[in-house]
């Protein structure tokens, strides 16, 4: 009975974490219909951007956060959108390769400026200490992650369902051509979607950074998780992504508690492999974002 309790609590917490990691990726998948393979770099820029402002320029937390967001937006619009996505959206082999390369350039640059030994540490702890659930201990910060995941996802859904921009984004996700015929400036929607996709991963990495190991290459495992969750959720369907992240969380926590923690990565990969082969449309087959 206790084991089931652990599994469920951990499924909830890991699921929220996965949701925050993959929400932005899924949004880009749904609207632009591309694989944003440079998504991992958002996590890296978030942590090291704040660190640069606080450590090198000596600013406080709030100016650092604002500065980091400005850098992220400039990078996403200036490099990812105008230089790569806008030019090569139809030539996917160049698009995917160059997105991977851009991510690699940034990661290597950051590794050059701030090697692992730089000891990056950002004071974003909101709830310190741990909570005991039966025999398991969970850092309180993880509950903040769960709460933030719920808040950001609801904000995204409300934005998509209730606002004019949400309607436009959903229209583009349903059919780019029809949306263009109706007078939507599709390129502008692409840019907005790319900028919106920065928010969840940035919040995610900033909140978990006190309890996570921070190094310049941390983006790759996050990107892999985001890809897996998005595939499972049906490539760019946010409802599917929400369900998929909790399924992945449940599988991860069950495998970790019942079989062997080292098998978690393998179990998720095998699950995604079979989903891709036998149900490629994912959990929620839908032509729209929600």
């Amino acid at each position, binding site marked *: 009975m206790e084991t089931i309790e652990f599994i469920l609590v951990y499924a909830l917490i890991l699921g929220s974490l996965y949701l925050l990691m993959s929400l932005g990726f899924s949004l880009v998948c749904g609207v632009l*219909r591309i*694989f944003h393979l440079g998504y991992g770099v958002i996590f890296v820029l978030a942590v090291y951007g704040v660190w640069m402002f606080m450590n090198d320029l000596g600013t406080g937390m709030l100016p650092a956060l604002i500065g980091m967001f400005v850098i992220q937006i400039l990078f996403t619009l200036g490099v990812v959108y105008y*230089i790569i996505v806008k030019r090569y959206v139809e*030539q*996917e*082999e*160049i698009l*995917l*390769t*160059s997105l*991977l*390369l*851009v991510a*690699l*350039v*940034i990661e*290597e*640059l950051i*590794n*050059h400026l701030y090697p692992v030994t730089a000891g990056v540490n950002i004071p974003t702890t909101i709830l310190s200490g741990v909570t005991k659930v039966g025999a398991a201990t969970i850092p309180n910060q993880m509950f903040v992650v769960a709460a933030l995941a719920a808040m950001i996802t609801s904000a995204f859904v409300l934005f998509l369902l209730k606002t004019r921009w949400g309607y436009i984004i959903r229209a583009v996700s349903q059919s780019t051509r029809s949306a263009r015929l109706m007078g939507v400036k599709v390129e502008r929607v692409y840019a907005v979607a790319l900028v919106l996709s920065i928010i969840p991963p940035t919040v995610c990495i900033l909140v978990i950074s006190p309890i996570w190991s921070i190094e310049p290459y941390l983006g*790759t495992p996050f990107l*892999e998780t985001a*890809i*897996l969750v998005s*595939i499972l959720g049906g*490539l760019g369907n946010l409802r599917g992504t929400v369900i998929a992240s909790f399924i992945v969380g449940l599988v991860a926590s069950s495998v970790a508690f019942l079989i*062997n923690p*080292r*098998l978690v*990565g*393998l179990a998720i*990969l*095998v699950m*995604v*492999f079979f989903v*891709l*082969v036998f149900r*490629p449309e994912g959990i929620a087959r839908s032509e729209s974002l929600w």
Partner: protein
Amino acid sequence: MVRFEHKRAELVIWLGDLKLGWSIEPRYWRNPLLGMALLAMLPLAFSGRPDFLTLITTANAFACIAMPLAWQMTGTGRLNFGPQLFVGIGGYTAALISVHWGWGPWATLPMAVLVGLFFAALFSPLTTLAKGLYFSLITLVLPLIFLELTYYFTGIFKGETGLFGIAPLVNLGRIKTNYIVSAYMSLVLLMVFLFVVFRIMQSRYGLYAAAINDDEEIAEVMGLNINVWKVICFTITSVMIAVTGWFMAHYFGTFAGVTFLPLPFMLKILLVVMIGGRGGIYGAIYGAYFVVILEKLLTVIGPTSHFLFPLILLILLFVLPEGIYGMIRRHRYREYYPTIRVRRR
């Protein structure tokens, strides 16, 4: 009796009664032969530098992965994001057998081919089951699954450290000779692959591959059994990549999944294909040498090379979308030029 004769635009070589002509006018030169002669001279030219010989061998091995991959992308009409899976399968088969049973490279080769064939046949239905982006994603996931397996069964695969003590490819007593002979062996492998892939792409089967690449449905309407041809193409090319894995395992003497299976190695292979000229067979060789030499040149300037290397490749990708070979082949526009499309309409 060898005689040379100069005739208008031709140099005629008489070997007894056998007449061999070589056109002097550049546009009739046999570029592949010239290129191969140049490649064959490289190991001798750098015979005193083991690091350069390793570089040449690595470049040849990269080309040996990129050429079958180029054929596979044409023949299945899909972009494979995980060719390194078969490098891993071939390499680990050779490494495990060599380390545990003490077999030499020539004994492990048939085993690497057999195991490669088994897994290639096992995964080949994916080319008919999965379409477009889904195929790319599945092939992206497969090597990562294999990597996780090597970590989990670390007793067998030695996940993080890798297997070492694999029988060397050649052992002629002198280290220098070993390096040169290995470089020539990689060149022989490259030439065999080039010959096979080139002849097939020139033949009727190459036409089938091109038809499948252009439009599967039309190819099927025209009476082509596309499923069979895609499966055959995937299987043969995967076995060829597994053979390259076997070569790398015996050449380096160690084999670690963590070197070959993660995304950075795949990115390098993808770059060889893209920089060389998408889907071009000869382009793969240009691309492989270019990527390997660029990486080596940049090590001179120190740690900044780590981000300059991808940056230069990125700029090249923008400036030369057809790759290096694309500049040359613009003059040969009547040849079939395969297109790579991830998502088809």
